[in-house]
């Protein structure tokens, strides 16, 4: 425990520095407009805030719907212990995506406009509705944690009554939302580099979101076990690593088929920045896939964690490629985010980590927390399906 103290202060100092720069960047954004805070231009209207804060934010929140589907719909009870942290991540993720949008929209005061002024032909319209509805669903899925904490049983029962339709709705909305972020780019066939532009972008975005949802769950379990000094649910995470390996295989195979059907492989012979970034992205998915198929990598917490981190970075590389670098050549311009864009992004990530930590500390998120009373918890949970059915 003593060893941890200085480490935390270093992190706190970094955190404070990030927040201060983030606040100054916020000042620039508010008082000097998008032009004062970003390197965006008429030819390159979307940058880091869309590609990372929104596209990666939504993807990294995918553990929520993946685990809800696994635990409650497919009824794989053994994953129950990591369900709550996944829902918390998803809820925080979505709230922070909205925060990111407030920075990126030219008129954040009009965030609500798509709910009133409709255009069902727009993917962005679908995205707006998915963000709104799914954030609401995640709030309701997370609410029981708060209600339990304060012993409010009546509203808890109400939520239990609607929990099944709510969970199905959540999975459907996530499916639509994850895929629609890919659909956004179907409209730019002449701009997005052909290694990434594909008519099945929505399918690829959906599949990769499942992979990163699982990877994020492993990631946060590992971190929280260190932060709170609790035991890691290793057998559970090992089997999740197995699932992750299979999901990655399916994803990579579909990408391979897609590239082959579009005759895009000759592009890999070109010595261009896009080729290398594509290679990086694929490597960060292939390597963890190969490693996760091996028992000795799944069964060591550190190695399992490393694999999850690689998947997360592979996913981020993919979204940044689709959202920024893959568009540069086609837009005829270069884009490197300004420091203020990076500062806002890091601040949002930092605040996300901090809030997660605080909530996990004060609310019943990790079941190993209440290890002594574990049987009681299990018993309490058992009647749920019957009650609903």
């Amino acid at each position, binding site marked *: 425990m003593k060893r941890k103290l200085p480490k935390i202060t270093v992190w706190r100092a970094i955190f404070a520095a990030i927040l201060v720069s983030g606040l100054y960047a916020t000042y620039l954004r508010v008082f000097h407009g998008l032009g004062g805070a970003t390197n965006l231009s008429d030819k390159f209207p979307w940058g880091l805030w869309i590609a990372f804060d929104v596209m990666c934010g939504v993807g990294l929140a995918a553990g929520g719907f993946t685990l809800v589907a696994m635990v409650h719909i497919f009824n794989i009870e053994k994953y129950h212990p990591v369900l709550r942290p996944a829902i918390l991540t998803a809820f925080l993720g979505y709230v922070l995506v909205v925060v990111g949008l407030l920075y990126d929209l030219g008129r954040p005061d009009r965030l609500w406009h798509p709910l009133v002024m409709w255009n069902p032909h727009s*993917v962005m319209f679908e995205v707006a509705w998915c963000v709104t509805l799914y954030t609401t669903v995640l709030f309701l899925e997370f609410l029981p944690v708060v209600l339990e904490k304060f012993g409010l049983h009546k509203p808890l029962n109400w939520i239990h009554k609607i929990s099944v339709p709510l969970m199905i709705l959540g999975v459907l909305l996530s499916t639509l939302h994850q895929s629609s972020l890919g659909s956004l780019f*179907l409209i730019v066939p002449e*701009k997005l580099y052909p290694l990434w532009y594909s008519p099945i972008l929505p399918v690829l975005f959906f599949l990769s979101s499942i992979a990163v949802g699982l990877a994020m769950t492993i990631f946060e379990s590992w971190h929280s076990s260190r932060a709170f000094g609790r035991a890691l649910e290793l057998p559970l995470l090992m089997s999740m690593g197995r699932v992750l390996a299979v999901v990655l295989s399916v994803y990579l195979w579909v990408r391979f088929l897609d590239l082959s059907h579009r005759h895009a492989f000759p592009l890999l012979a070109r010595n261009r920045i896009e080729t290398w970034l594509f290679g990086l992205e694929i490597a960060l998915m292939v390597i963890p896939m190969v490693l996760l198929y091996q028992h000795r990598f799944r069964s060591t917490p550190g190695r399992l964690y490393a694999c999850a981190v690689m998947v997360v970075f592979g996913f981020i590389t993919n979204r940044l490629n689709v959202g920024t670098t893959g568009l540069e050549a086609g837009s005829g311009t270069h884009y490197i985010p300004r420091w203020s864009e990076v500062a806002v992004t890091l601040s949002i990530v930092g605040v996300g980590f901090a809030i997660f930590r605080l909530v996990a500390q004060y609310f019943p998120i990790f079941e190993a927390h209440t290890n002594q009373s574990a049987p009681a918890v299990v018993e309490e949970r058992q009647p749920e399906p*019957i009650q609903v059915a």
Partner: protein
Amino acid sequence: MSKAILYDSTLCIGCKACEGACAERWGLPYNDQIAAEQTISAHKLTAVETHGDKFCRRLCMNCLQPTCVSVCPVGALQKTALGPVTYDADKCMGCRYCMQACPFQVPTYEWSKRLPKMRKCNMCYERQSAGKQTACAEVCPVGATVNGDRDELIREAKRRIGEKPDQYYGKIYGINEAGGTSVLFLSAVPFAQIGLKTNVPDEPLPETTWRVLELVPDVVSTGTVLLGGIYWITNRRAEVAKKEGRR
């Protein structure tokens, strides 16, 4: 009939009178410094580019099936029956999807403003509604920019190519590009040489996203049945197992 603009690059003398008239029509400042700018921007909605000894105008193409109209989540952009693509700044929330999606990279943004708007040419919707010419066509001293019915302008363009085939690159830019545009170009040289985008697909781009969006009801309905069914099966199994265990 839908209105259009025909710009004949072979007639253009690069006087930039259209730029000045456009600025005046929008109430935007115009001076030598702005005149020297070669690109369209939020304060310059049309620009006369110089390509060697050739000139080429840039302005909103006011497409027949506009990409920007299809992508705008709040319907701030509309294709009017008259032809122009109009913009309602009061609806716009600044997502800039129109800018990202436009195959001609036309929409521009007021980057430095605290309450910014998108800006683009709307083919003088207000003037044309009142039966007047677009400001650029009215002011053009050599008839390089003319304004009229699209079908008539296409006939006129074909007539010009037919009369002087050696002076024209034998095609009309804007007939098929992105499914057809309301601004048509004639040129003496291949279009790429005067800065026009030649990689724009002929297919109307809204189709690319609509193909997926129209599946949303199918995904939702099939998903509901599938997930509901899986839930019913898996939890029924658990229920039965529990009851049998009890007995």
